[in-house]
């Protein structure tokens, strides 16, 4: 059956078509649609497909399923694997009975991430096999392959996707008439295997792991590499590639009319290194094109192998065909012109920056925080989510990783005692990684303010549900109180004076107490159709041009997308973008130039 699928949807079909019964993980671009698609297409199939509070938790929930004998998978973005890596490093020794597919979506080019780390490197570090699909159709096939290898060799297997696979669309031929075969989980006690304690058991498993890797190396050669080597023509030079990078190379060779052998590696680790080194010897020069770290290149390194380590490929940022062409030139495979030189240059165009949505309460919070806690006397640590866009309002000083706003607020409060530290974090990020650092802060008697921006949704990644939303028995306020911090709750109103006055109260209380003060701001996401209607007053704004003095306060301190200067150099509000929150009318403008549209 042929379907047009996004890479992440293709992976979801691959999971179902390999009888995967448990899927968990944490949302993160570009991986989020994998789990949501499983939820959508599983219908009545007996599949547990649910989000977890963070990647490590999701990994462990699913992995236990694989130990109990059912096929399972965990999904996350590349930085999520950093969080789950503790579990992975031990799981790679212990292994699994049912299949365990670890799906990680990388983001070469930092499109929506703080790093462009290569998860294949992580697979190599953990000594587990990794498959690297090039397109959505291949992602479907490789998901099934990963599941098969995982079950057969009793090891976790990584499916490494990248943004250009996860967020591409292709026509995918999926299995017709597939019958899902349910397996009843049946945990078999085997303490020496399943309980990762030092030392004898681990030593034995470490040797078994090496043995297993050799067998998989052999499988990789016989099943995946040898058939492709047989098709090589024996040209003077060779290019070795894997994953999405392969697509760039294949197109460049066609478009430049070059006849160079191209070997695609489906499983970049573990590689049959000796056999590949033999192959490499038959060619004059070999170029390795892979994304983003030199994994294959390092494994097969020889005198005539070139790539990133030799300085022939670009070192950072996403691959493109021009970069492949430049490498071909550098190594001497091509001498012609650069056919990817732009024919037209963009000139005089306004670049649109991502911004908080019109009506988003996060904007009010940063505006009010800065009014009450002035920038010169404050430090603003923040965290990862939509609210990170508060950086446009200069309401954020630091962003590191999930949950770090809390621990860094603690650290700053010790190091720089002359400033007030006021940190911001979303509710989902707080549940993900904010709780242990808050306990630590209370434990160590720290003094700072933490503002939890509770919109009850994981807004940035497509509005997945949060623990409290799904089950109100998870009580954010009780959790914070249970950590020992003091709580002040704010029920958001689209009136900037109310928000500013609330933060004045916060400041007063902060000065009175000697412990972390946590603000829980109960607000909403404008894209959240279920809840937004209860919050939006429908007061649309316009500008009284006589009052506007072009002071820039709204465009630099409030930064709402509909606001822009017109040709008369007066602020104007784009009526198509304004959603009627009315906040700007309540007191953003020093000269009261914002007025309700109904009054004009």
């Amino acid at each position, binding site marked *: 059956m042929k379907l*047009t699928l996004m890479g992440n949807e293709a992976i979801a079909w691959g999971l179902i078509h390999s009888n995967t019964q448990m899927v968990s993980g944490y949302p993160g*671009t570009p991986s989020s649609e994998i789990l949501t698609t499983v939820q959508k297409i599983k219908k009545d199939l007996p599949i547990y497909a649910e989000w977890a509070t963070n990647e490590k938790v999701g990994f462990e929930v699913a992995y236990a399923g694989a130990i109990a004998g059912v096929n399972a998978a965990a999904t996350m973005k590349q930085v999520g694997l950093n969080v789950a890596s503790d579990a992975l490093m031990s799981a790679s020794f212990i292994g699994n009975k049912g299949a365990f597919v670890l799906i990680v979506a990388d983001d070469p080019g930092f499109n929506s991430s703080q790093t462009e780390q290569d998860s294949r490197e992580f697979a190599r570090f953990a000594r587990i096999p990794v498959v690297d699909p090039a397109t959505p159709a291949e992602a479907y096939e490789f998901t099934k392959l990963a599941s098969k290898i995982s079950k057969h060799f009793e090891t976790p297997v990584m499916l490494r996707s990248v943004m*250009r696979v996860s967020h591409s669309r*292709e026509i995918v031929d999926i299995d017709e008439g597939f019958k899902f075969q349910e397996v009843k989980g049946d945990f078999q006690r085997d303490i020496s295997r399943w309980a990762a304690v030092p030392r004898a058991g681990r030593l034995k498993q470490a040797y078994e792991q090496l043995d297993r890797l050799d067998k998989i190396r052999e499988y990789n050669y016989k099943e995946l590499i040898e058939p492709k080597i047989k098709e090589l023509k024996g040209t003077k030079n060779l290019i070795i590639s894997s994953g999405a990078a392969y697509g760039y190379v294949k197109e460049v060779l066609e478009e430049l009319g070059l006849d160079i052998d191209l070997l695609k590696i489906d499983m970049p680790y573990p590689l049959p290194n000796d056999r590949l080194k033999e192959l490499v010897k038959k060619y004059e020069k070999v170029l390795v094109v892979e994304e983003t770290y030199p994994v294959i290149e390092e494994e097969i390194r020889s005198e005539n192998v070139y790539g990133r380590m030799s300085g022939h490929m670009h070192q950072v940022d996403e691959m493109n065909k021009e970069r492949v062409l430049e490498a071909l030139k550098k190594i001497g495979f091509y001498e012609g012109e650069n056919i990817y030189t732009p*024919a037209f240059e963009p000139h005089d165009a306004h670049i*649109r920056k991502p*911004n*908080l949505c019109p009506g988003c309460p996060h904007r009010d919070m940063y505006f009010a925080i800065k009014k009450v806690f002035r920038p010169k006397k404050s430090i603003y640590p923040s965290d990862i989510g939509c609210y990170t866009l508060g950086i446009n309002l200069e309401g954020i000083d630091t962003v590191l990783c999930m949950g770090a706003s809390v621990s860094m607020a603690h650290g700053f409060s010790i190091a720089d005692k002359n400033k007030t530290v006021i940190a911001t974090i979303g509710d989902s990020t707080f549940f993900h990684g904010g709780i242990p650092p808050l306990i630590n802060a209370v434990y160590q008697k720290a003094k700072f303010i933490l503002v939890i921006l509770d919109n009850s949704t994981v807004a940035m990644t497509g509005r997945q549900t949060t623990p409290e939303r799904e089950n109100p028995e998870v009580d954010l306020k009780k959790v914070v109180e249970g950590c020992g911090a003091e709580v002040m709750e704010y029920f958001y109103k689209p009136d900037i004076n109310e928000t500013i006055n609330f933060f004045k109260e916060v400041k007063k209380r902060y000065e009175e107490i000697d412990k972390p003060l946590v603000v829980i701001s109960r607000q909403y996401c404008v894209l959240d159709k279920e809840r937004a209607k209860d919050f939006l007053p429908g007061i649309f704004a316009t500008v009284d041009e006589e009052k506007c003095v072009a002071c820039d306060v709204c465009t630099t301190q409030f930064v709402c997308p509909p606001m822009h200067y017109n040709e008369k150099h007066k602020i104007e509000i784009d009526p198509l973008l304004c959603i009627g929150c009315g906040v700007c009318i309540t007191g953003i403008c020093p000269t009261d130039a914002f007025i309700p549209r109904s009054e004009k």
Partner: protein
Amino acid sequence: MKYQIVVAGFGGQGVVFLVKVLSICAGKKGYKFLGTENHGMSQRGGSVSSHIKIGDFYNPLIDYAQADLLIGLDKDEAILNLPYLKKGGKVVVNADEFPKIDAEIYAIDANGLAEQGVFDAKGLNVFMLGITLEKVKDFPFSVDEVKAAIEEINPKFAPKNFEILDKAIEYAKNI
């Protein structure tokens, strides 16, 4: 058959919808299709551009000077994406005027038309596709094929989208 299209706009303009329409059109004609779109930060009003490659391709990204057609739902976004267009390529853009370059340019002030009530501004993406269907002679799909794809994505809104598409085609005939 090889045809490369860049659709440029910003969050909320329905760029991704057009990608879906074209992918279904390709599938039904038995053409290979690869498309890619930006997610994440771009959903918050930032630039959204999509690359669509129809025919024998292996990677979804279009490189500089390769696109046969640039559909711009916004003038600035279209200008920013000009490097992807090949010399002599075609541009269909929502703009009252557009830089004069060595390309076939169809600039339509669709924002103005929406304000005059010619069509619902929410259907800007479909309107620009209609202009494309009428003006771009080497466009690989017919009006009926596009309509069938729109119907498949959402039968409920299909009549409204057909209306906008037909209006755009009529409008384009007279310019």
